[in-house]
């Protein structure tokens, strides 16, 4: 369990526990179940997005479109509910497959034309953001009894902690994706492609199907995140979630996934988001620090993890 493969994961976990302990020591009420649960419910949409991003990065790619897809999904849902008076469930049923198709399309373009994922998903990012603005320039409010019902739904836990539906959705998705990654051929194939696409092809991995599926899953999860985001704000706004793709990438890297592909864990990404969340909570509790300090600390952490990756990679090549 303590091999090189798991080392980044352990480092992230230790940092997370350490920072949480420091917070709990400094501030009353920091070390409570309520703060922990809030870390999950506040960041559920980011975690779901970052899980998709993990798949993409393990396969050696990148998906810059997820922030825009979140906005597009949110705006599309609110337009359908507020302007066309659809029931939210019907809106979700229509929007989810459309989001998935958006990712499939990007995957097909990347594979068929041997293009850099960076540039294809950059195009996807502009396209989705533009589409969202065309649907509605203004923020669209959602006023529907279903929304009230869902946001009130949850379980009371001890110490005033409230387990809401977004956290439960996240947990279900996390479990499904972990199963996919470690107990199906699809998961093995993702790691294989990230290791060496050419070798993977020679060993009989269906590279095309896998690539398309990876980007489809990433977009699907971003679409889900967009829907969850509408429950936070009770609205859809075309300029929401700007830069979320970068937060997601940061969480994936802090979670120990190699940017060059082939190595990493979905669970690590969740730890990465939690670590970023703990830093933010700490700064909120402190009250004197500007919230921009979050970005500074995350920036430093990223540098640390990138250098760590490089060092770990060096030792691995030295051993062969």
């Amino acid at each position, binding site marked *: 369990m303590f091999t090189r*493969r798991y080392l980044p994961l352990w480092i992230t976990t230790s940092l997370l526990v350490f920072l949480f302990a420091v917070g709990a020591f400094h501030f009353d009420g920091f070390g409570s179940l309520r703060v922990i649960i809030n870390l999950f419910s506040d960041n559920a949409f980011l975690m779901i997005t970052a899980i998709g991003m993990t798949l993409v990065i393990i396969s050696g790619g990148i998906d810059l479109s997820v922030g825009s897809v979140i906005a597009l999904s949110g705006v599309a849902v609110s337009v359908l509910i507020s302007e066309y008076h659809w029931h939210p469930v019907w809106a979700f049923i229509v929007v989810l497959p459309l989001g998935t198709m958006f990712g499939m399309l990007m995957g097909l373009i990347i594979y068929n034309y041997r293009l850099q994922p960076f540039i294809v998903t950059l195009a996807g990012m502009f396209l989705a953001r533009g589409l969202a603005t065309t649907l509605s320039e203004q923020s669209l409010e959602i006023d529907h009894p279903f929304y009230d019902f869902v946001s009130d739904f949850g379980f009371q836990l001890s110490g005033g902690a409230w387990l809401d539906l977004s956290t439960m959705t996240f947990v279900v998705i996390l479990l499904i994706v972990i199963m996919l990654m470690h107990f199906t051929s699809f998961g093995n194939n993702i790691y*294989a492609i990230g*290791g060496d696409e050419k*070798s993977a092809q*020679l*060993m*009989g991995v269906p590279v095309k199907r896998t690539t398309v599926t990876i980007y489809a899953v990433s977009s699907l999860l971003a679409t889900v995140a967009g829907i969850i985001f509408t429950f936070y704000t009770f609205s859809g706004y075309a300029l929401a979630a700007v830069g979320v793709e970068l937060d997601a990438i940061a969480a994936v890297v802090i979670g120990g996934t190699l940017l060059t592909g082939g190595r990493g864990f979905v669970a690590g990404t969740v730890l990465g988001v939690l670590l970023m969340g703990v830093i933010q909570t700490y700064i909120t509790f402190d009250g004197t620090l500007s919230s921009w300090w979050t970005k500074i600390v995350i920036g430093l952490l990223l540098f640390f993890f990138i250098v760590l990756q490089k060092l770990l990679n060096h030792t691995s090549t030295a*051993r*062969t």
Partner: protein
Amino acid sequence: MTAVLELKNISKIYPGVKALEDVGLQLFSGEVHALLGENGAGKSTLVKVMTGAEIKSKGDIIFQKKTYNFSTPIEAQQVGISTVYQEVNLLPNLSVAQNLFLGHEPKRFGFIDHSLMVKKAKQLLTRFNLDIDVTVDLSSYSVAVQQLIAIARGIAMSAQVLILDEPTASLDADEVKVLFKVMNQLKSEGVAIVFITHFLDQVYQISDRITVLRNGKKVGEYITDKLPQPKLVEAMLGKELKELTGSHRAESSMTQKRENEKLLRMENVSSKGSIQQFDLDVSKGQAVGLAGLLGSGRTEVCKALFGIDRLNEGRITLAGLKLRLSQPSDAIHAGIALCPEDRKTDGIIGPLSIRENITLALQARLGWWRYLSKQKSQILADLYIEKLLIATPDADKPINQLSGGNQQKVILARWLAIEPSLLILDEPTRGIDIGAHAEILSLINSLRKGGMSLLVTSSELEELVAFASKVVVMRDRKKVKELSGHELTSQHVMTAIAEG
């Protein structure tokens, strides 16, 4: 006894080239069959046809009495023909077990059964006497172990024919022993193994039968024990080991005298993974030939001299000065030029004109701040077009529109333009027509008379013997013999290649 795999009259025609012509091969179960031939003989094309990576133009592939037309490697794999390519084609980031079972993982209720996979992987590897932790990354093991794992993967797909393409190229002597033990074991289990290598000693250690290819044709099929090594080399090179009379080595005493001025000296030069303890002296105005089979270390000597491969030990001195070569530009500045073996990928810059291709090295030597004017480069280009008889209407024609021989002359001109004191030519006459061939040979002679030193590698022994006053014979990355004076005949060179 019928063959498990039989290839009949296989031909493969690429546009303009006949890569294989009526080649046959019979493989019996429980044998190691060596497939030999020099570069370009058609070995790899034959393997590709056998495994479905290339589609044959003509002929039949009969596997277990059934005729097949493979169109992808997966089809061949599924019936039981596995190939382990030269570079280990596995995934360093996956565990050993995952590598062994990627694509056909053992499953339970639709999900991968990890404990069963580990158990099966261990079972498989015990056949190879490998008792290793199969749950850790493949990259934690040596190349030799990885190679064995690649072979184990081939076997896991229940192969009856196993093709090993240069499996020993990156292995050391002990690792080769382990591999041979496994091959012998597989043989006793009835697997038919095709073994491709350029190490002739290994052919005699492990193989039962040999098929030799040359120029896309089958030269013959032999029982290994009944084919002495010199005969095998004969078959591969296509020349008889007969005494060549009329050696024209009666060079004038004047050149003999000048040859006493040492120009280049390599002492005890070793480079990791290429050459070992190599010594060489080249005098001023001397042409030295490097002979040996493919993979003997010829090209590696050129690379070490030109600063492409780093030296581990030893020293190189040029005109009395010790050279520190860490990149080719160091060698160029010292006055060493190299015409590489593969003109297409390492030499020409296709879309650029002849003039630009000629002045490239000179400009690099001058440095970019001393710009070579178009006028000057035009004069230079015209000079060499005339001197080397390059067949072209003008110097502005893109080089990729020239014939192979003329391209080779342009590359030569490029290096002559920097007026090197030592010119290295790696296979200067490969793949060019007879006329250009003769011109390049006479050019080598006139350069030598002009006081330039040359180091030339070639597989054409007669050619080497004709212009070189000394030939160094290499085998298994070491110098085995140095021939000069009346000893220097193609007969002697060939004997040295074969026997050391």
